[in-house]
């Protein structure tokens, strides 16, 4: 077999595809079944945020006769395969069979688990297409996909034509005959797209970004409601994964959606009906606080290997009791979090919030989205300049922590209204802010982590762990402290850059563009 000719889809309805092919090709070519139809079970895998799809890759687990096989294909047509030995989904890339496929996926998926994106049975039949000498000039593969979800309608039959070497001209003729057949169309979407489409979905649907399209002239209240609804979608999309503890990023995205919601309620309170923001702010604070212990432990555990590698006077293995302690505490905190997310309190909150947002009354004489965005961003920016300017070398840590929160508010406000701004102006402003945020983040995380290490060390001491573990934790704390001090000394120059006339001008352009 040689060059692959165009694919086809057949939507002919009552006439079976094999009959349609015979009708299309007679009398020049005959259609001979080459093998018995075989059924394969196909499971497409990706991370919840579609990292493989975004990288132009498709990962599929194909099971039929013999052991199941993982097939990773790229848009360029290359494939890497691996035999699956009892792997269950979801799984982190570390849990895949070792080899080139795992190597390719490790860096890409990082902390995200691979989980089934779609499932289908695939009935594959092969036909020989012969000329008048009964010589095979092309092979035709017919693939009938049956999506796993019971209510789904089967996607159209998929046909792929492959010319036998030296018979490209005849294969082209066959392709022309097929294309002329009623119900036969050239081209076929990738099988994953076809299966997802039967349920009204598409690959790459989920993103944790606030990707709402606002218009400058729409009422600000409607714009804010659209943002809040989008955040609620993200929040709800991550609940099941957080409860099942599939990977740490479900909780991360859920937590970010909650924080963004709280910021939107705070900065946009005046745009909402009286009393709405004060009613829901405590509810979302409850939700945010609920997620904090597990997330803090995730941060510790995710950075554990890197932190252990930095130890200078202790052996990384000495940290085992500390790691066990964190893991055990995480199990407890995760259970508590899952219970809360299954509670009536939580489900009532999200249901009530959605119905409130979808039924918001229009605001009389309210501002448009562009004016509101400019006002909110401008105010958040000025607040950072004022509070950051008041921080000196002797200012207490709380002042820097407060400034970090204000920076997050500005960052979120920029994200909410991004669709109103010129993209490059938006990116420049975010880049300006990000430098300051990173510095403040390192500083605060360092301080929090040091306090936690000290508190845990006290607990472990009481439970009689070896002294080597405590010494290693001390070593760890000293490295964290070093990073914290570096961030603190870096702050003044970072803030000076953010508050410089050039940087201010970049924000002014942004708020001005909101008016246009």
């Amino acid at each position: 077999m040689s060059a692959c000719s165009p694919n086809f889809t057949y939507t002919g309805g009552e006439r079976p595809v094999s009959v349609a092919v015979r009708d299309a090709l007679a009398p020049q070519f005959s259609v001979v079944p080459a093998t018995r139809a075989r059924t394969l079970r196909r499971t497409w895998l990706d991370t919840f945020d579609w990292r493989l799809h975004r990288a132009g890759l498709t990962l599929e687990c194909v099971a039929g006769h013999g052991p199941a096989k993982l097939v990773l294909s790229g848009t360029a047509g290359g494939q890497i395969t691996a035999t699956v030995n009892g792997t269950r989904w979801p799984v982190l890339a570390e849990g895949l069979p070792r080899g080139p496929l795992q190597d390719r996926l490790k860096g890409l998926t990082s902390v995200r688990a691979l989980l089934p994106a779609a499932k289908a049975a695939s009935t594959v039949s092969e036909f020989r297409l012969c000329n008048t000498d009964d010589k095979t000039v092309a092979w035709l593969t017919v693939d009938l996909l049956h999506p796993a979800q019971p209510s789904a309608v089967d996607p159209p039959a998929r046909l792929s034509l492959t010319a036998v070497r030296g018979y490209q001209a005849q294969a082209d003729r066959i392709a022309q005959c097929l294309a002329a057949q009623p119900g036969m169309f050239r081209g076929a979407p990738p099988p994953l797209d076809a299966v997802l489409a039967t349920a009204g979905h598409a690959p790459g649907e989920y993103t944790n970004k606030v990707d709402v399209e606002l218009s400058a002239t729409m009422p600000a209240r409607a714009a804010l409601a659209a943002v809040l609804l989008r955040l609620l979608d993200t929040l709800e999309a991550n609940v099941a994964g957080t409860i099942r503890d599939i990977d740490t990023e479900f909780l991360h995205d859920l937590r970010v959606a909650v924080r963004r919601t709280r910021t939107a309620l705070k900065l946009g309170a005046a745009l909402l009906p009286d009393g709405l923001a004060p009613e829901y702010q405590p509810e979302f604070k409850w939700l945010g606080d609920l997620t904090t212990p597990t997330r803090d432990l995730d941060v510790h555990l995710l950075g554990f290997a890197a932190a252990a590698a930095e130890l200078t006077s202790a052996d990384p293995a000495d940290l085992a009791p500390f790691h066990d302690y964190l893991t055990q505490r995480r199990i407890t905190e995760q259970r508590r979090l899952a219970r809360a997310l299954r509670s009536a309190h939580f489900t009532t909150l999200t249901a009530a919030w959605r119905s409130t947002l979808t039924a918001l009354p229009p605001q009389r004489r309210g501002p448009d989205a562009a004016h509101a965005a400019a006002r909110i961003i401008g105010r958040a920016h000025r607040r950072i300049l004022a509070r950051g300017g008041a921080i000196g070398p002797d200012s207490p840590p709380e002042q820097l922590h407060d400034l970090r929160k204000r920076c997050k508010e500005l960052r979120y406000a920029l994200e909410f209204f991004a669709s109103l701004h010129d993209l490059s102006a938006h990116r420049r402003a975010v880049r300006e802010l990000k430098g300051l945020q990173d510095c403040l983040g390192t500083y605060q995380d360092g301080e929090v982590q040091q306090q936690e290490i000290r508190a845990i060390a006290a607990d472990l001491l009481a439970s009689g762990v070896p002294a080597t573990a405590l010494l290693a934790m001390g070593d760890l704390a000293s490295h964290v402290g070093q990073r914290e001090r570096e961030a603190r000394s870096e702050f003044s120059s970072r803030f000076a850059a953010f508050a410089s006339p050039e940087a201010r001008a970049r924000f002014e352009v942004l708020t001005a563009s909101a008016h246009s």
Partner: protein
Amino acid sequence: MKIVATYNIKGGVGKTAAAVNLSYLAAKDGQRVLLADLDPQAAASFLFRVRPRVKGGGTALVRGSRDLDKAIKGTDFDGLDLLPADFTFRNLDLILDTTKKPTQQLARLLRPLRTSYDVVFLDCPPGISLLSEAVLHAADLVLAPIIPTTLSLRTLDQLTEFISGLDGHRPALLAFCSMIDRRKRLHKEIAERLPTERDDVAVTAIPALSVIEQMAVRRAPVTAFAPRSAASRGYAELWAEVRALLS
């Protein structure tokens, strides 16, 4: 890439049947195989249902104005391709004679295919000619079917002498008894005796069976349409001997 030529000075001894069936078995073994039908009678091309026609004919192929690669056709079997014969191949001697170093020309033409194929079978026409010299120069192994008669044995000696008289590269030789008529005592005696007397004769012998003649009706290797027949078992054993020699 190993090159095996099915060749004998005599005609009608089972060269094409051997080339077709061993090519099929090699491909079934997972090797990437090309069968080049150099015989203008085009029997191998007929058996694989490929029309015996090459654009530009033998002249274009030998002089290199048409890539060998572009003349190759896929057969109905995975891993097995065919360079079809063309009626102009009757003049291959004359065409070769117009090239520089004609005995090396076939080897030169096949060289670019070495990354595409593991084994190339050359199904040759009978006779001793410039083409024969070019084939022997290109081949790693000459597989010579012989009918077990006294005259055929004389031909085998002539072939052995011919190969040993070649300058430079000399291929290995493996003869095998072919078309054995079990009713003839002489056939049986020679077929049994010959492998014990000569190192260059295969242990396997291929009997004359009607199922082998059926290939022309079925237009497929007997090893494909009757894989459990005595003929197929014989070819499988012969392929095992050839494969061992090639490795």
